[in-house]
Protein backbone atom coordinates (compact mmCIF):
# COMPACT_ATOMS: atom_id res chain seq x y z
CA UNK A 1 0.00 0.00 0.00
CA UNK A 2 2.63 2.43 0.99
CA UNK A 3 4.68 1.47 -2.06
CA UNK A 4 1.89 2.39 -4.27
CA UNK A 5 1.64 5.76 -2.66
CA UNK A 6 5.26 6.72 -3.11
CA UNK A 7 5.13 5.78 -6.76
CA UNK A 8 2.31 8.11 -7.25
CA UNK A 9 3.96 11.00 -5.53
CA UNK A 10 7.20 10.51 -7.51
CA UNK A 11 5.39 10.79 -10.76
CA UNK A 12 3.91 14.01 -9.60
CA UNK A 13 7.21 15.81 -8.83
CA UNK A 14 9.92 15.72 -11.54
CA UNK A 15 13.55 15.77 -10.42
CA UNK A 16 14.59 19.29 -9.80
CA UNK A 17 17.30 20.39 -12.23
CA UNK A 18 17.92 23.61 -10.41
CA UNK A 19 21.22 22.35 -9.01
CA UNK A 20 22.45 21.14 -12.39
CA UNK A 21 24.06 24.45 -13.34
CA UNK A 22 25.90 24.45 -10.04
CA UNK A 23 27.30 20.99 -10.64
CA UNK A 24 28.35 21.95 -14.15
CA UNK A 25 29.92 25.13 -12.86
CA UNK A 26 31.99 23.20 -10.36
CA UNK A 27 33.26 20.96 -13.15
CA UNK A 28 33.85 24.02 -15.28
CA UNK A 29 35.93 25.70 -12.60
CA UNK A 30 37.97 22.55 -12.13
CA UNK A 31 38.87 22.42 -15.79
CA UNK A 32 39.49 26.14 -15.98
CA UNK A 33 42.00 25.86 -13.18
CA UNK A 34 43.86 22.84 -14.48
CA UNK A 35 43.91 23.99 -18.09
CA UNK A 36 47.24 25.04 -19.41
CA UNK A 37 46.66 26.76 -22.67
CA UNK A 38 49.52 25.82 -24.90
CA UNK A 39 50.89 28.84 -26.57
CA UNK A 40 53.11 26.87 -28.87
CA UNK A 41 52.03 24.54 -31.59
CA UNK A 42 54.24 21.51 -31.77
CA UNK A 43 56.01 21.23 -35.06
CA UNK A 44 58.28 18.39 -34.11
CA UNK A 45 57.54 14.88 -32.99
CA UNK A 46 57.77 14.72 -29.26
CA UNK A 47 57.64 11.34 -27.66
CA UNK A 48 59.39 11.78 -24.35
CA UNK A 49 61.59 9.12 -22.79
CA UNK A 50 60.65 7.36 -19.57
CA UNK A 51 62.49 7.74 -16.31
CA UNK A 52 61.98 7.26 -12.60
CA UNK A 53 64.05 9.98 -10.98
CA UNK A 54 61.73 12.81 -11.78
CA UNK A 55 61.41 16.24 -10.30
CA UNK A 56 58.31 18.28 -10.80
CA UNK A 57 58.77 21.69 -12.31
CA UNK A 58 57.34 23.96 -9.71
CA UNK A 59 56.98 27.41 -11.12
CA UNK A 60 55.57 27.54 -14.58
CA UNK A 61 56.58 31.13 -15.17
CA UNK A 62 60.23 30.26 -14.66
CA UNK A 63 60.26 27.43 -17.15
CA UNK A 64 61.08 27.80 -20.81
CA UNK A 65 60.83 25.00 -23.29
CA UNK A 66 63.11 23.81 -26.01
CA UNK A 67 61.68 21.16 -28.29
CA UNK A 68 63.81 18.82 -30.34
CA UNK A 69 62.62 16.12 -32.66
CA UNK A 70 61.96 15.14 -36.23
CA UNK A 71 59.53 17.50 -37.97
CA UNK A 72 55.94 16.30 -38.06
CA UNK A 73 54.60 14.94 -41.34
CA UNK A 74 53.29 18.28 -42.51
CA UNK A 75 56.80 19.68 -42.70
CA UNK A 76 58.65 16.58 -43.74
CA UNK A 77 58.36 17.32 -47.45
CA UNK A 78 60.32 20.52 -47.04
CA UNK A 79 62.54 19.75 -44.07
CA UNK A 80 63.13 16.02 -44.22
CA UNK A 81 63.29 13.89 -41.15
CA UNK A 82 66.47 15.09 -39.48
CA UNK A 83 65.73 16.26 -35.97
CA UNK A 84 65.19 19.98 -35.60
CA UNK A 85 65.00 22.40 -32.74
CA UNK A 86 61.82 24.28 -32.14
CA UNK A 87 61.84 27.46 -30.13
CA UNK A 88 58.51 29.14 -29.52
CA UNK A 89 56.71 28.64 -32.78
CA UNK A 90 59.47 28.20 -35.26
CA UNK A 91 62.27 25.93 -36.23
CA UNK A 92 65.67 27.09 -35.12
CA UNK A 93 69.34 26.29 -35.22
CA UNK A 94 71.62 25.80 -32.22
CA UNK A 95 73.06 29.25 -32.76
CA UNK A 96 69.66 30.82 -32.16
CA UNK A 97 69.59 29.56 -28.61
CA UNK A 98 71.57 32.34 -26.86
CA UNK A 99 69.13 34.82 -28.35
CA UNK A 100 66.19 32.80 -27.17
CA UNK A 101 67.66 32.52 -23.69
CA UNK A 102 68.13 36.29 -23.49
CA UNK A 103 64.61 36.78 -24.69
CA UNK A 104 63.19 34.45 -22.07
CA UNK A 105 65.26 36.13 -19.39
CA UNK A 106 63.78 39.52 -20.08
CA UNK A 107 60.32 38.09 -19.38
CA UNK A 108 61.29 37.19 -15.84
CA UNK A 109 61.97 39.34 -12.84
CA UNK A 110 65.65 39.99 -12.39
CA UNK A 111 65.88 38.45 -8.94
CA UNK A 112 64.31 35.26 -10.14
CA UNK A 113 66.53 34.81 -13.15
CA UNK A 114 68.94 32.38 -11.50
CA UNK A 115 66.02 30.09 -10.76
CA UNK A 116 65.02 29.83 -14.39
CA UNK A 117 64.89 26.33 -15.77
CA UNK A 118 65.07 25.28 -19.36
CA UNK A 119 63.05 22.18 -19.99
CA UNK A 120 64.35 20.13 -22.86
CA UNK A 121 61.51 18.24 -24.42
CA UNK A 122 63.35 15.88 -26.66
CA UNK A 123 62.00 13.03 -28.68
CA UNK A 124 63.54 9.76 -27.62
CA UNK A 125 64.75 8.87 -31.09
CA UNK A 126 66.91 11.95 -31.39
CA UNK A 127 70.64 11.37 -31.46
CA UNK A 128 72.84 12.99 -28.85
CA UNK A 129 74.71 15.12 -31.39
CA UNK A 130 72.09 17.82 -31.66
CA UNK A 131 71.30 17.56 -27.96
CA UNK A 132 74.87 18.28 -26.96
CA UNK A 133 75.05 21.18 -29.41
CA UNK A 134 72.06 22.64 -27.63
CA UNK A 135 73.63 21.97 -24.26
CA UNK A 136 76.83 23.74 -25.27
CA UNK A 137 74.85 26.76 -26.40
CA UNK A 138 72.98 26.80 -23.12
CA UNK A 139 76.25 26.68 -21.24
CA UNK A 140 77.62 29.54 -23.30
CA UNK A 141 74.62 31.66 -22.47
CA UNK A 142 74.90 30.66 -18.84
CA UNK A 143 71.57 28.89 -18.61
CA UNK A 144 72.76 26.03 -16.46
CA UNK A 145 69.60 24.71 -14.90
CA UNK A 146 68.04 22.29 -17.29
CA UNK A 147 65.44 19.60 -17.04
CA UNK A 148 65.17 16.64 -19.34
CA UNK A 149 61.42 16.27 -19.60
CA UNK A 150 60.35 12.69 -19.29
CA UNK A 151 57.39 10.57 -18.42
CA UNK A 152 57.13 8.64 -15.19
CA UNK A 153 57.94 4.96 -15.52
CA UNK A 154 56.53 2.40 -13.16
CA UNK A 155 59.41 0.52 -11.66
CA UNK A 156 59.43 -3.20 -12.16
Amino acid sequence: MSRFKTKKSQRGAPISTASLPDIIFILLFFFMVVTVLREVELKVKNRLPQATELTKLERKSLVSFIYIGAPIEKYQSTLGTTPRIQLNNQFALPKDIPNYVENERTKVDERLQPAMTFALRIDKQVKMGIVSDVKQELRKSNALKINYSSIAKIER
Partner: protein
Amino acid sequence: MAKNRRIGNEMNASSMADIAFLLLIFFLVTTTIDVDKGILHKLPPWDVPPEDVVANRRNVLIVLINAQDRILVNNENARVDDLRRKAKEFIDNRGRNPKLSDSPDKAVISLQNDRGTSYDIYIQVQNELKAAYRELRDDLSMKRYGKLYKDLDRESARVIAIEFPMRLSEAEPKTIGEGS
Protein backbone atom coordinates in the same frame (compact mmCIF):
# COMPACT_ATOMS: atom_id res chain seq x y z
CA MET B 1 2.06 46.49 -11.74
CA ALA B 2 4.83 45.47 -14.08
CA LYS B 3 7.32 45.76 -11.28
CA ASN B 4 5.31 43.47 -9.14
CA ARG B 5 5.25 40.82 -11.79
CA ARG B 6 9.01 40.93 -12.21
CA ILE B 7 9.58 40.25 -8.57
CA GLY B 8 7.13 37.42 -8.63
CA ASN B 9 8.72 35.68 -11.63
CA GLU B 10 12.13 34.13 -11.15
CA MET B 11 14.63 34.52 -13.90
CA ASN B 12 14.59 31.55 -16.20
CA ALA B 13 17.82 29.79 -15.39
CA SER B 14 17.37 26.72 -17.53
CA SER B 15 19.72 27.98 -20.23
CA MET B 16 22.41 28.55 -17.63
CA ALA B 17 23.21 24.87 -17.67
CA ASP B 18 23.64 24.94 -21.44
CA ILE B 19 25.99 27.89 -21.29
CA ALA B 20 28.00 26.24 -18.57
CA PHE B 21 28.08 23.04 -20.60
CA LEU B 22 29.47 24.84 -23.61
CA LEU B 23 32.21 26.39 -21.54
CA LEU B 24 32.88 23.07 -19.88
CA ILE B 25 33.27 21.32 -23.21
CA PHE B 26 35.60 24.03 -24.44
CA PHE B 27 37.87 23.59 -21.46
CA LEU B 28 37.62 19.82 -21.63
CA VAL B 29 38.89 19.90 -25.18
CA THR B 30 41.69 22.39 -24.64
CA THR B 31 42.95 20.87 -21.43
CA THR B 32 46.24 19.11 -21.60
CA ILE B 33 46.99 17.91 -18.14
CA ASP B 34 50.64 17.52 -18.86
CA VAL B 35 52.57 17.68 -15.68
CA ASP B 36 56.01 18.93 -16.41
CA LYS B 37 58.32 16.47 -14.89
CA GLY B 38 61.83 15.58 -15.74
CA ILE B 39 65.32 14.83 -14.66
CA LEU B 40 66.95 17.91 -13.23
CA HIS B 41 70.45 18.49 -14.40
CA LYS B 42 73.00 21.16 -13.76
CA LEU B 43 75.35 22.05 -16.57
CA PRO B 44 78.90 23.07 -15.78
CA PRO B 45 79.65 26.74 -16.47
CA TRP B 46 81.16 27.48 -19.83
CA ASP B 47 84.10 29.71 -19.00
CA VAL B 48 85.34 27.86 -15.93
CA PRO B 49 87.87 25.24 -16.95
CA PRO B 50 86.94 21.79 -15.71
CA GLU B 51 88.51 20.65 -12.49
CA ASP B 52 91.63 18.67 -12.87
CA VAL B 53 91.11 15.01 -13.31
CA VAL B 54 91.35 13.21 -10.03
CA ALA B 55 94.83 11.91 -9.53
CA ASN B 56 93.74 8.47 -8.58
CA ARG B 57 92.31 6.36 -11.34
CA ARG B 58 90.31 4.20 -8.97
CA ASN B 59 88.09 7.10 -8.00
CA VAL B 60 86.68 7.52 -11.46
CA LEU B 61 84.01 5.31 -12.93
CA ILE B 62 83.99 5.71 -16.66
CA VAL B 63 80.71 5.09 -18.39
CA LEU B 64 80.88 5.07 -22.16
CA ILE B 65 77.98 4.82 -24.55
CA ASN B 66 78.71 4.31 -28.20
CA ALA B 67 76.71 5.08 -31.31
CA GLN B 68 75.16 1.62 -31.21
CA ASP B 69 73.85 2.33 -27.70
CA ARG B 70 76.18 -0.21 -26.13
CA ILE B 71 77.40 0.65 -22.67
CA LEU B 72 80.91 0.18 -21.34
CA VAL B 73 81.55 0.60 -17.64
CA ASN B 74 85.24 0.72 -16.76
CA ASN B 75 86.02 -1.21 -19.93
CA GLU B 76 83.46 -3.90 -19.26
CA ASN B 77 80.29 -4.45 -21.18
CA ALA B 78 77.24 -3.59 -19.18
CA ARG B 79 73.52 -3.32 -19.56
CA VAL B 80 71.33 -0.49 -18.36
CA ASP B 81 69.85 -2.76 -15.70
CA ASP B 82 73.28 -3.43 -14.19
CA LEU B 83 74.23 0.18 -14.07
CA ARG B 84 72.55 1.12 -10.84
CA ARG B 85 74.11 -1.78 -8.93
CA LYS B 86 77.53 -1.10 -10.42
CA ALA B 87 77.36 2.59 -9.62
CA LYS B 88 76.30 1.87 -6.07
CA GLU B 89 79.11 -0.62 -5.58
CA PHE B 90 81.54 1.89 -6.94
CA ILE B 91 80.37 4.84 -4.87
CA ASP B 92 79.89 3.01 -1.62
CA ASN B 93 83.06 0.94 -1.85
CA ARG B 94 84.95 2.79 0.89
CA GLY B 95 88.29 1.33 -0.07
CA ARG B 96 87.36 -2.34 0.14
CA ASN B 97 87.87 -3.25 -3.48
CA PRO B 98 91.15 -1.78 -4.76
CA LYS B 99 89.62 -1.19 -8.17
CA LEU B 100 86.72 0.89 -6.90
CA SER B 101 86.53 4.23 -5.13
CA ASP B 102 88.20 5.21 -1.83
CA SER B 103 85.20 6.99 -0.41
CA PRO B 104 81.88 8.36 -1.65
CA ASP B 105 83.02 11.96 -1.56
CA LYS B 106 85.93 11.23 -3.84
CA ALA B 107 84.01 9.13 -6.30
CA VAL B 108 83.38 10.69 -9.68
CA ILE B 109 81.31 9.17 -12.43
CA SER B 110 82.44 10.25 -15.80
CA LEU B 111 79.92 9.92 -18.56
CA GLN B 112 80.87 10.01 -22.18
CA ASN B 113 78.65 9.47 -25.13
CA ASP B 114 78.91 9.54 -28.85
CA ARG B 115 77.13 12.03 -31.07
CA GLY B 116 75.25 9.07 -32.47
CA THR B 117 74.03 7.80 -29.12
CA SER B 118 70.27 7.88 -28.89
CA TYR B 119 68.70 10.24 -26.44
CA ASP B 120 66.58 7.47 -24.99
CA ILE B 121 69.53 5.44 -23.79
CA TYR B 122 71.26 8.57 -22.56
CA ILE B 123 68.29 9.39 -20.36
CA GLN B 124 68.11 5.84 -19.10
CA VAL B 125 71.77 5.94 -18.10
CA GLN B 126 71.37 9.34 -16.45
CA ASN B 127 68.33 8.00 -14.66
CA GLU B 128 70.13 4.93 -13.35
CA LEU B 129 73.08 6.94 -12.10
CA LYS B 130 70.81 9.45 -10.40
CA ALA B 131 68.87 6.55 -8.93
CA ALA B 132 72.06 5.03 -7.53
CA TYR B 133 72.83 8.24 -5.67
CA ARG B 134 69.25 8.61 -4.55
CA GLU B 135 69.19 5.08 -3.14
CA LEU B 136 72.45 5.56 -1.28
CA ARG B 137 71.21 8.82 0.17
CA ASP B 138 67.91 7.23 1.11
CA ASP B 139 69.67 4.37 2.87
CA LEU B 140 71.80 6.71 4.92
CA SER B 141 68.98 9.06 5.83
CA MET B 142 66.79 6.08 6.75
CA LYS B 143 69.50 4.91 9.10
CA ARG B 144 70.12 8.31 10.65
CA TYR B 145 66.78 10.05 10.64
CA GLY B 146 64.30 7.32 9.80
CA LYS B 147 63.06 9.28 6.82
CA LEU B 148 63.65 9.27 3.10
CA TYR B 149 66.06 11.81 1.71
CA LYS B 150 63.39 13.81 -0.04
CA ASP B 151 61.41 14.21 3.19
CA LEU B 152 64.33 15.56 5.18
CA ASP B 153 64.52 19.15 6.29
CA ARG B 154 67.04 21.35 4.62
CA GLU B 155 69.75 21.05 7.24
CA SER B 156 69.92 17.28 7.47
CA ALA B 157 69.49 16.94 3.72
CA ARG B 158 72.65 18.98 3.34
CA VAL B 159 74.51 16.70 5.70
CA ILE B 160 73.53 13.69 3.67
CA ALA B 161 74.32 15.40 0.40
CA ILE B 162 77.80 16.14 1.67
CA GLU B 163 78.33 12.46 2.48
CA PHE B 164 77.20 11.43 -0.98
CA PRO B 165 77.89 14.34 -3.28
CA MET B 166 76.57 13.76 -6.74
CA ARG B 167 79.51 14.09 -9.00
CA LEU B 168 78.56 13.29 -12.52
CA SER B 169 80.93 14.73 -15.02
CA GLU B 170 80.08 14.74 -18.65
CA ALA B 171 82.73 14.83 -21.27
CA GLU B 172 81.99 16.46 -24.55
CA PRO B 173 80.72 13.92 -27.01
CA LYS B 174 83.04 12.62 -29.63
CA THR B 175 82.27 11.19 -32.97
CA ILE B 176 83.62 7.71 -32.92
CA GLY B 177 81.18 5.73 -34.96
CA GLU B 178 78.87 7.20 -37.53
CA GLY B 179 77.43 10.25 -35.81
CA SER B 180 74.66 12.52 -36.92
